[in-house]
């Protein structure tokens, strides 16, 4: 029986953000922080099974970044730098420092943010798991376009299973938005979270497009044991990006899953949760055991 997670407002320097948290296991190890993708999925039903599985062994915190899903403070976020320091502010306020420095798991945009935290403040991150992460520009392997795409095209690029509830909803929305003529027939409340998430992601990732030109020469500073997971079927972020992360972070482990796409926590929650737990176990096992 997985622990129930609760979602609540949480006060930060930039305003009130939405925080999902819970679990704890035996309480012996540091908590896990999950950083969401440009979809702003933390707190949504879609990612709940994954977070609940993680919460069986660890206390889990999944904050919504400013601008996403009702979190305030987007006016104070202009770039990656601001996003990094906002996350550190959240860590501080949750006392996720020193011995409680968290295991950080990030999906896509969230993975990139996690890497940016880890090179700036190596001690702020206990372990690092980057799933489908962008952040490095690899010549010849550009990331596909996220902004302004039709929902159905995007679903094809980031899901293996087009009947997954989120993918199916994206196809449904595309059917009525095909050409845009019937946009007005969709209740605006259904569209609102999508528009808000994309605007918040654009603040950080519009230009340079989902990468930091300086990241390759900084990643050598990362000391957290790092696991990179990418899906061979991901048509949004090329797997070459994860390979490059693995090359640049000392001791990093790279796994490219043949049957996975981009939204791995949504489509393969059990396998990913198991893999993350094992990464944490091995990384934190006492030397020699």
């Amino acid at each position, binding site marked *: 029986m997985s622990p129930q997670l609760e979602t609540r407002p949480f006060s930060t320097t930039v305003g009130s953000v939405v925080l999902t948290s819970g679990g704890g296991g035996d309480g012996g190890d540091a908590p896990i922080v999950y950083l969401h993708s440009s979809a702003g999925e933390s707190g949504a039903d879609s990612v709940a099974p994954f977070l609940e599985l993680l919460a069986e062994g660890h206390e889990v915190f999944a904050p919504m970044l400013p601008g996403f899903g009702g979190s305030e403070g987007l006016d104070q976020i202009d770039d990656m730098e601001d996003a990094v320091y906002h996350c550190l502010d959240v860590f501080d306020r949750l006392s996720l420092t020193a011995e409680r420095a968290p295991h950080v798991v990030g999906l896509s945009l969230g993975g990139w943010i996690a890497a940016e935290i880890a090179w700036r403040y190596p001690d702020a991150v206990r372990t690092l798991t980057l799933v489908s992460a962008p952040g490095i520009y690899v010549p010849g392997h550009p990331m596909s376009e996220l902004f*302004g795409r039709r929902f159905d095209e995007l679903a094809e690029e980031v899901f293996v299973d087009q009947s997954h509830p989120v993918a199916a909803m994206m196809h449904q929305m595309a059917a009525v938005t095909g050409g*845009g*003529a019937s946009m*007005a027939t969709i209740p*605006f409340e259904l569209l*609102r979270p999508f528009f808000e998430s994309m605007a*918040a992601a654009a603040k950080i990732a519009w230009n340079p*497009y989902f990468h930091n030109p300086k990241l390759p020469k900084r990643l050598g500073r990362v000391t957290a044991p790092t696991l990179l997971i990418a899906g061979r079927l991901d048509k949004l972020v090329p797997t070459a990006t994860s390979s490059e992360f693995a090359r640049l972070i000392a001791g990093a482990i790279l796994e490219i899953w043949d049957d996975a796409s981009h939204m791995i926590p949504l489509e393969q929650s059990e396998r990913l949760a198991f893999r993350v737990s094992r990464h944490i176990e091995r990384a934190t096992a006492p030397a020699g055991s």
Partner: protein
Amino acid sequence: MRLFSFHLMPYPGLPAEYDGPAWITCPNALFDPSLGTEIYNRYLDELILADELGFDGVCVNEHHQNAYGLMPSPNLMASILARSTKRCRIAVVGNALPLYDPPTRVAEEFAMIDCISGGRLIAGMVVGGGPEYYSFSINPAQARERFAEAHDLIIKAWTEPGPFEFIGKHYRIRYVNSWPKPVQQPHPEVWIPGAGSLETLEFVAKHRYAYMGIPYFHISVFERMFALMREACENEGYEADPLQLGWLVPIFVAETDAEARSRYEEHFWYFVKRLLPGISISPPGYTSVRSLENIIKGGHTFAEFLETWEQVTEGQYAIVGSPETVLEQLTANIERLGVGNLLGLFQLGTLPADDTRRNLELFAAEVMPKLRQTFPGTERRAITGAGGSVAAGAAGAVA
């Protein structure tokens, strides 16, 4: 009422087999430079003709990397018009401020055009179209704040003695000292085009500028947009002057209704079906969520989705017919919308040179004088209020 001839300078040569967007990714292999030579010169002639025919002004605008409008630099066109027109106002509608870095470039170039033309410039300022944010990779989530800051900088460059230092969030310039300065004092009349974004309406109302409704929607969408504009002015404590409102609409006049439609319709469809696709992309954060909700309400009436000529007529997407019909429909719509500026598109899509010339001549001879009789005023009335006074023609309140 002031009457303007607006030219988009469209690319008429998209091959029939190309069915992609006309924006952002429309392959520039489709651009034929020799056709470019022909149409740029022809289109300029059509604007110069408008001056000779007695229009109050001509309008050019700015778009990038597209087949819809070939004026990445409207200031180049305006500078030619400053020399080759004699009487009319030259409205640049507008410069997309966030695309100029530093925006003092706009203050300088507009001042040059105002000097060369002897004070005939209308200084349009615009956030820029959604596609431009892809073409320039400028962050759309900062579009509004960049626009507002660039605007403040430009107005300050025109109205405050230089040199001074400007320290903003996006622009930091140690020495602002614009040479030249505009002939019109305190600065040229400012127009802001918009498609219904509430932030833009509020900005225009606050600064007492003029708002140009972007076309290609059902007439009821314009009606709502201008009602919101009047409301925004009321919220600022004054009544909107009709000359603060402009309606942009395609116009085609021929001897009879039947002839007008038969000469015009195919060119109209080229425009809406070939040149509009791709224009309405809205990059993330470019429009606030509250405005999006408002804009989406009218989105389904966008001209790109038109299928029949009856829909075109019913929604008044283009005013097409004999001089009598055009006069009657324009009069009714001007009254309905309460606008003081009519911005006619007399060339559209693939409409050829001879039809465009005849259109302008017939309009000037048969329609223009009667519109002027019905709607006489051509000067902004002075407005006094909390924001200060506004002299005719010039917008006063400076941020």
